[in-house]
């Protein structure tokens, strides 16, 4: 269960102060699929970073599965993040020097999962994403769709409670985009909570609920019926 209360985020340089988030109140229930939409610069990614424990809000509260995290240090956030959140990015963010298998294995290494179990879970994730046959390839040898499937495999391999996706189809053609959205839908059907930032109304259609942001504020919410 995720809850934010009056979340604020300011970015200040010597000359200008920009308000990225201006009093966001948002609840996400376990097993929900939420899409966040809005024009460029409205604060979508900033919100996702805070929800993903990559950044702290300037003000307000953020309750992450029963823990107040808004004042945590980077170290504490890293501890909490590990294993409980999976990330999927528009630009895949795979590590070029690692193979598909090794990229997917990475979260389990940091969780100190025993080797035998690691192997089982990585293979399971790769099979599930239909990328097993490419396990020994490096990211630059794959198509965009394959890269994103690898990234999703990496996001799910540690069986996180929450998956955060930042425009996951932004760099893909429609066929591959459709496939990725179906995978996310399946994961959600199995109980994983998903929060996705997107520009695409079609992708947002996969979510239960769409939150629309404008200038750092929630302006409307649509619930799919």
């Amino acid at each position: 269960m995720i809850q934010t209360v009056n979340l604020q985020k300011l970015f200040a340089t010597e000359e200008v102060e920009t308000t990225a988030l201006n009093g966001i109140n948002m609840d996400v229930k376990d097993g929900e699929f939420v899409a966040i939409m809005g024009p460029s610069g409205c604060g979508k990614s900033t919100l996702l970073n805070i929800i993903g424990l990559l950044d702290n809000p300037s003000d307000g509260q953020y309750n992450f599965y029963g823990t107040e995290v808004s004042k945590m240090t980077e170290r504490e956030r890293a501890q909490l993040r590990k294993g409980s959140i999976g990330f999927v990015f528009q630009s895949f963010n795979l590590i070029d020097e690692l193979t598909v298998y090794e990229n997917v294995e990475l979260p389990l290494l940091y969780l100190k999962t025993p080797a035998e179990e690691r192997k089982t879970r990585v293979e399971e994730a790769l099979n599930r994403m239909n990328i097993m046959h490419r396990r020994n390839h490096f990211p630059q040898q794959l198509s965009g769709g394959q890269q994103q499937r690898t990234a999703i495999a990496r996001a799910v391999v540690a069986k996180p409670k929450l998956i955060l996706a930042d425009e996951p189809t932004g760099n893909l053609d429609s066929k591959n985009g459709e496939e990725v959205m179906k995978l996310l839908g399946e994961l959600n059907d199995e109980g994983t909570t998903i929060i996705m930032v997107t520009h695409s109304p079609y992708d947002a259609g996969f979510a239960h609920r769409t939150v629309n942001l404008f200038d750092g504020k929630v302006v409307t919410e649509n619930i799919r019926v």
Partner: protein
Amino acid sequence: MLTNTLKLAWRNLTAGGWYSVLNVGGLAVVLAVSVLLLWWVKDELTFDRFHPAADRIYRINSRHGTGADEQYWQSCPAPIGVAAMSGRVPGIEKATRLAGLYDFNSLRAGNQTYAEKSNDLGYADENFLDVFGGFRVLYGNIAQPFPTPNSVVLTEAMALKYFGTANAVGKTLTVVDSNRVFSVGAVLADLPDNSSYHRKIIFPMSLRKRLFTGNGPWKLMDDDWGNFSFATYVKVAPGVDPARVAKTLTDIQNKARNTSEPGQLSTYTTQALTTLHLYEPDGHDTGLQQVRMMGLIALLLLSIGCINYVNLTTARATRRAREVGVRKVVGAESGHLMGQLLVESLLTLALSLVLAVGLIQLMIPFYRDLTGKTLGFSLLDPQVWLFLVGALLVTLLLAGVYPALLIARFDPIRSLRGRGVTGSQAGLRRVLVVTQFALATGLIFSTLVIGNQLSFLQKRELGFNKTHIFTIQTNDKTEAFRKALANESSVEHTASATTELTSGMGSTSDTEWDEKTPGRNFMMNQMSVSHNFVQDMGMTLVAGRNFREGKADSLSFIVNETAIRDMGISNPIGKRFKLHDWNGQIIGVVKDFVFSSAREKVPPTILFLRPEWNGTLYVRATGQNTKQALATAERIWKQNSPQYPFEYRFLDDAYDQLYKAEQRTGQLFRFFAGIAILISCLGLFGLAAYTAEQRTKEIGVRKVLGASIPSIVGLLSKDFLTLVGVAIVIASPVAWWAMNNWLHEFAYQISIEWWVFALAGLLAVGIALLTVSFQSIRAALMDPVKSLRSE
């Protein structure tokens, strides 16, 4: 996890391309040179410490003269050793004497005759092995290395040379001069490189005693207080103050010698065995200065290498920012990342070290040439490993930790956008580049100054003409030999003297002259010459006349200008002068001529005629026919002394030897400056590449807006050149100060001129410009469309 980390480190290294090559190559070069230098420093600092009681062994030095005339010698007369060995001096446990051997140098083993260098021959008291304790005896008895008066001790190499076996005890060697036969009493393991005693054929002191023919009033060697040619070593009991021992020995001398003139008596001091190699008898740390300099250069080079590594790694960190971000997002903590980056550094360093070991193997012949050391640098030696691993860890600490800390602390959100490095790191890189180039400029500057001083020394007016002269040791056959050669057409002049000029004349304080201040006592060099020596060597008389042939001038003296100045004689010609018991007069003053290293001033020198002392023949060949002159000399030698090999030495070579230390310093500096510049340039090259890469978009925009290629090259080069400029400003005064100190070691020196600064600066700027412009031009030529798209 570790295998994963290693695997990734390896992939990162191989994916790094030229960046990895620069990093590994640069580190390998500095590691190799630094390890070699530090190995040399270690060797120098451990001299003579292999003797088990080294800290209780002292050499007795003697002090002569007072005030400005004071001199320290590393030797004392034989009776001092006798007193030390008598057991009557409190505090001395044991004592022994060592001496050089100049009585013969030709030895016969079987049918083969060998002419040995006098440096390899020596005399020693029977207990010398026991006193030192650290010379390893392979065969024979340590307590009795000379079982009979006709015994000789050899090192293993000599035993092998003469007899083909190390176990040579009982085998015989014949001294060619006297036909006396000696049997080998003991064989020593070859003396270690870091032994200051290095004679290889050692005869018993009793032989020296037998060959002694008397010196003035003294009829026995052990009574002779006038001959300072014995090195006396004492082993004191634990806790004994060596100064008290020296005082007792001085008292013993004063009691034994009843001379009314206090200036005639020496006082004795002690010098610890472990300081002999690096300190002069007067306590001056000449050797240690060189060791410090080399140690410092090793550290400087290592710093330059580390700076390179830090610069290249942190510059490249930008490229890795995204990777670091991703890792953090999927669960890596700073500790994980630190660990991974340190493993990468360690891998790079380990690879560099392997390469460095290879380089060291390649450099060993060069090292041997330069240092004259055999260098026990074997990978089987655990000490070598200690050194290599030590160098690795120090480098890791200096160069690996900072980039790892920096990169591991990247903010994940910024990193995911490909931005990791903030302004302060760029600032640090600037500081590092300045440091690196300041060191390189300093070395260039020093190299130029050393080069100038060397060429000044080599072109210095010697006060005589040394061209086409070779010398031959003719001992008692000088005159016969000279006569035989004098009429040869290939020979221009022949002259003779006691020794060859650069090999050191004897010196004495046994002198008297008119106007001498009572009690004044200082050492003057003395050399017997043939009557034509001054004239035919091309020396200049500034007053008086030359010697005349025959006996008429046997009590006449020619002295040099320094001697006149030091003695304080006005109008010297015709003044009374007494040397030993020869009461005569000064007939001429010769312009100072150089026969010692440029570090020393020309000493006061007396020339006189004593033909029976003249054991060295000087032959000046006519310029066209030096080869023929040598062939003739050899032919005549073989007729007169067929049992000895013919040996000669050109005076030109002998004078070159005087500057060998300086030439070596010059050579080393050229080498180190080269390495420093090379490594600094590697670093600059890498940095320039990254700067160009980072500014790709800016370059694209500028080009779209109409910037010309030269303006972009200028833009990119300007920053670096400013840094190099700052480096020059910092380095110049420091280098000037250091070099000025170095020059003060010389009695004759250049002054550092402004153009040396200018040239060093220009060279540094030029080299930097060349390095940077390659990258700048490449960046400037890039297609702007591509540059913009890459953003």
